[in-house]
């Protein structure tokens, strides 16, 4: 009877900063089983939306996630506007896209650093997070905050973009684009990096379809899913997005997709700044949101974000359902890790860009024979040393 080790990695993550729970069963070095138990960041937000007014919920929902705050608020605002029969003015929709793409940039750079850290590549973490400060400065100058931009109102946006801000953003994007070329070179040619990512965690297009993955995780397997393209919302019909696809479906592809998407986001930001339509920032919303149901889908940095909103014609929503992209992609991690070495688990997990506050988890690997428990730090170190 082979020994089975199940290793726990506690809710306290030095690297990922977020709590959660996976359980991996290990046979020697090979992962033979995986399950997930979330709940450490579960706050009860969907229920809370029913006790707050439509406007208050905007401020609540943009705090589901500190990394993709704007896209949550955008999905909600678009949905409520649709229920109310209101269309935000073109300039507002364009500013929503602008902030959304700037958010994607900060998110992908953040992920690049965290993923590098998981691989033991501290230098890349430091460089990418230093460079990320450029987009943080741009977001702060434009919106007034580094995180939780609160750009949206029901009916439009809160602030305008003037030429000074636009020029500063363009300069920042120029700098980031030159840095991103270095990152692309790195994730496609650095042998040490590729040893930990090439051929690891391979997910075919068919598997991606079956597992229901979304976002860059799906696009890395050649599955062309991108809500900005499939169901263009806000101003995306006027500023079309070129979809980024890779075919190999391994970890390396997931890195390449996100880095290449940065270039597309830089292009979009420039295009929007150059083509900002004139006009108002807000359309008038009725006092009460009429009865009805609507579905709002947007492309968060991690993939499709799905909102179902139901109004009973009252001052508070009847139901706000939020399905975040990480919930879709989490299921794939459980399947992908099976058959892989334990050393690959941290990278496979980070490869789907898990947003823990959108969903939460810890990783647990238990040693059935000795009762020994590993920490996440130990698993991460194990991965780094295995590839040395």
């Amino acid at each position, binding site marked *: 009877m082979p020994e089975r080790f199940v290793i726990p990695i506690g809710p306290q993550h030095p690297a990922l900063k977020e709590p959660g729970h996976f359980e991996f069963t290990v046979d020697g070095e090979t992962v033979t089983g995986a399950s997930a138990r979330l*709940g450490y960041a579960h706050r009860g937000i*969907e229920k809370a939306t029913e006790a707050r007014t439509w406007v208050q919920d905007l401020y609540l929902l943009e705090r589901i996630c500190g990394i993709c705050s704007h896209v949550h608020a955008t999905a909600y605002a678009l949905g409520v506007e649709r229920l109310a029969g209101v269309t935000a003015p073109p300039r507002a929709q364009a500013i929503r896209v602008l902030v959304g793409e700037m958010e994607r940039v900060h998110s992908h750079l953040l992920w690049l650093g965290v993923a590098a850290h998981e691989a033991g590549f501290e230098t890349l973490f430091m460089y990418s997070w230093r460079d990320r400060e450029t987009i943080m400065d741009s977001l702060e100058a434009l919106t007034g905050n580094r995180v939780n931009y609160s750009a949206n109102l029901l009916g439009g946006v809160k602030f305008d973009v003037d030429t000074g801000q636009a020029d500063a953003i363009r300069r920042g994007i120029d700098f980031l684009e030159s840095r991103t070329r270095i990152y692309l070179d790195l994730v496609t040619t650095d042998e040490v990096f590729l040893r930990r990512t090439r051929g690891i965690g391979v997910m075919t297009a068919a598997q991606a379809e079956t597992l*229901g993955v979304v976002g860059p995780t799906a696009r890395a397997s050649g599955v062309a899913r991108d809500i900005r393209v499939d*169901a263009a919302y806000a101003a995306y019909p006027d500023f079309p997005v070129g979809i980024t696809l890779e075919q190999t479906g391994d970890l390396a592809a997931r890195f390449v997709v996100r880095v290449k998407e940065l270039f597309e986001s830089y292009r979009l930001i420039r295009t929007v700044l150059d083509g900002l339509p004139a006009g108002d920032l807000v359309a008038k919303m009725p006092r009460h949101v009429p009865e*009805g149901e609507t579905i709002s889908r947007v492309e968060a940095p991690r993939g*499709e974000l*799905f909102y179902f909103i139901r109004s009973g014609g009252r001052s508070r929503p009847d139901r706000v359902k939020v399905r975040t992209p990480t919930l*879709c992609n989490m299921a794939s991690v459980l399947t992908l890790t099976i058959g892989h070495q334990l050393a690959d688990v941290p990278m496979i997990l980070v490869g789907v860009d898990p947003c823990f506050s959108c969903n939460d988890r810890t990783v647990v690997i238990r040693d059935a024979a000795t009762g020994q428990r590993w920490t996440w730090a130990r698993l991460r170190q194990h991965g780094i040393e295995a590839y040395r």
Partner: protein
Amino acid sequence: MNTEAALERATAIVAAWGPAADHPEPARVDVAVARDDLLAAVGALRTASWGYLSAITGLDLPSRGELEVLYHFCEGAAIVTLRVRLPKGDAAIPSICGVIPSASFFERELGEMFGVTVVGTPDAARLFLPDDWPEGVYPLRKDFTPGGAAGGGEPHA
């Protein structure tokens, strides 16, 4: 295929089990399906490779004494939602994981939040609610009020 054509195709696929299709928004079709026909309708969409399961939404309809479960399938911009009404006293529904394995997380969430018994779901363990959450308390049901079971103060007025 454009959105309207995709919706028509899906409506035809599930027509045998859901003849009454509702068109609540331009890109959406809602189809009411009986509990016993759910698997057949889901299977038909899968066999025809129409879209992917994007989410499962639970609703509590206290005035009707019913729960409603919505299965949202997306193909491009087109969304087809299969809607199943369940009496609260018999809130059981078959699992669709045999057809769509990735539905597992959605079914777990549905079960713990609404008290729907998803029959045959491969993993019925709690997903989001804490270990010490009381049995039989379903937070997204309308009769549950926060502040009773857990901490937290009053929301801002």
